[in-house]
């Protein structure tokens, strides 16, 4: 109990917990779950965007997108490493993803249908991710906090690039404008659901906030995101697909319509439109790559043996 008290005191004082420090099991487990889920989201998130690299409409856009997806692979890597400092192995985490035990962000279970979706993902999805993640730069677990600093920096860059792509398109042909509006129509609701269930229905929030694994509630973050994003939609000359959306002078915030949580939970259960595609692609990549990983290990073992001799 002394250990626990000391731990809670350090966390309450906004000090970092480091890998070698004592920590409660529940804290460790919660962090492994959250960090690995975040890592999986980066890796699975490469797929909807990867779908457009080969069809990017200009060489410049192709390099921007390829660099973005490369960054995401990098984020996945830091995050897996951060989770590894808590004693989780990469293989275990990936098995948990492939068996469906571990989750990843529901948003990646929607398809990318036109080039505008790539802009919309950068702007809305990375945008929502940043809102979620900025507070995590000061989260209590050191390696996670440091990973988030780098992740947030790169994601702000992606967000600007995504929005920039949509600005160009909304100044373009009628077809391009229609693509932008359609992308907003499809990504808006899933993006604002990325903040998770409403506060009155979010079981782990209180403890996570106490442990500084979260720092703001789901609804607070969601409101912040909506307030920041609605003017950007209007700047593009586009509409938010929410008939109930309106500025509330009194609250100083936008009011917004009811979210379709049935949809959200269906996607969490694995019934998103592209859920099967995503899992099949990840499993296939992993299974098809088994011989490569084995070969690299075998070669490395042989090399070490030689070096030792």
């Amino acid at each position, binding site marked *: 109990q002394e250990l626990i008290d000391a731990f809670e005191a350090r966390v309450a004082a906004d000090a970092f917990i480091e890998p070698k420090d004592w920590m409660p099991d529940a804290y460790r487990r919660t962090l492994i779950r959250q960090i690995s889920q975040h890592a999986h989201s980066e890796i699975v998130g490469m797929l909807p965007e990867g779908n457009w690299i080969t069809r990017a409409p200009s060489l410049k856009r192709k390099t921007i997108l390829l660099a973005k997806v490369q960054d995401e692979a990098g984020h996945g890597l830091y995050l897996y490493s951060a989770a590894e400092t808590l004693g989780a192995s990469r293989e275990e985490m990936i098995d948990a993803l492939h068996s469906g035990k571990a989750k990843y962000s529901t948003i990646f279970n929607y398809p990318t249908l036109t080039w505008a979706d790539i802009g919309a993902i950068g702007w809305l999805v990375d945008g929502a991710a940043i809102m979620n993640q900025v507070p995590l730069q000061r989260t209590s677990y050191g390696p996670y906090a440091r990973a988030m600093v780098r992740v947030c920096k790169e994601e702000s860059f992606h967000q600007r690039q995504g929005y920039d792509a949509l600005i160009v398109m909304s100044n373009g042909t009628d077809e391009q404008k229609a693509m932008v509006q359609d992308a907003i129509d499809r990504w808006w609701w899933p993006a604002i659901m990325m903040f998770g269930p409403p506060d009155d229905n979010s079981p782990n929030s209180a403890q996570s906030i106490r442990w500084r694994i979260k720092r703001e509630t789901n609804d607070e973050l969601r409101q912040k995101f909506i307030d920041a994003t609605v003017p950007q939609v209007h700047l593009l000359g586009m509409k938010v697909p929410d008939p109930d959306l309106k500025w509330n002078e009194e609250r100083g915030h936008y009011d917004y319509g009811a979210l379709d949580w049935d949809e959200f939970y269906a996607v969490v259960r694995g019934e998103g439109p592209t859920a099967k595609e995503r899992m099949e692609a990840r499993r296939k990549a992993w299974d098809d*790559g088994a011989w490569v990983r084995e070969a690299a290990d075998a070669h490395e073992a042989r090399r070490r043996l030689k070096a030792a001799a």
Partner: protein
Amino acid sequence: MENALFSYALRLGDDSLVLGQRLSEWCGHAPAVEVDLSLANIGLDLIGQAQLFLGYAGEVEGKGRSDDRLAFHRDVMAWTNCLMVEQPNGDFARTMARQFLFSTWQKALFDGLAASKDARLAEIAAKAVKEVTYHAELAGDWVIRLGDGTEESRRRMIDGLDWHWRFVEELFQADAVVETLVAEGVAVDPAGLRPGFDARVAAVLAEAGLPEMQLPRGVVGGRKGHHSEHLGHILAVMQHIPRTYPDAVW
């Protein structure tokens, strides 16, 4: 030889772009996230080179064609990349065999080209040579790792080299375009690159414990637009959006 410089810059750009496009197909599907990173990184370098070479080709041609115009609005017979770069990714061993052979050649080429009398080509090559040196090393390491890994990886690497070896001859062929520019000190004489290439390949294969490559008849034709069946499919995908919206700016 009219427009030899245009043709030459175009070839260099086409090589880089087609291989960059191929590598980007791997995105999200590689054997490990570290490998995904490497492949994206190489692909990105290559597409960056393509922008510069194609941009320069367009300037030399003087008909107002931009890098994008050349990339997205030429049909298959107007492409002049070598056949090796358009080969399908296959498994990871085939991808790495292709990368090793191509980057080893490209490094030797760019080393020479950095001394071209054409300032722009020299500049582009000098900038790219660092990238390409890294590609050749990374791919060489994988050839060694897979050749000296497991039975399966060795078998697959032999198959990968075997698939691509018939396209090596084309890399060292000279035609009127090359000869004209070699005489002017602009292009690199490809024949002069062969001994270094052979030595490097032999050294890596030896370290990997792989057999020496047999020389089959070379398959050629890419430089004059006679490709394998694969390029048409690459272009169908790559060009779909610009062809569908010819007036749009992105």
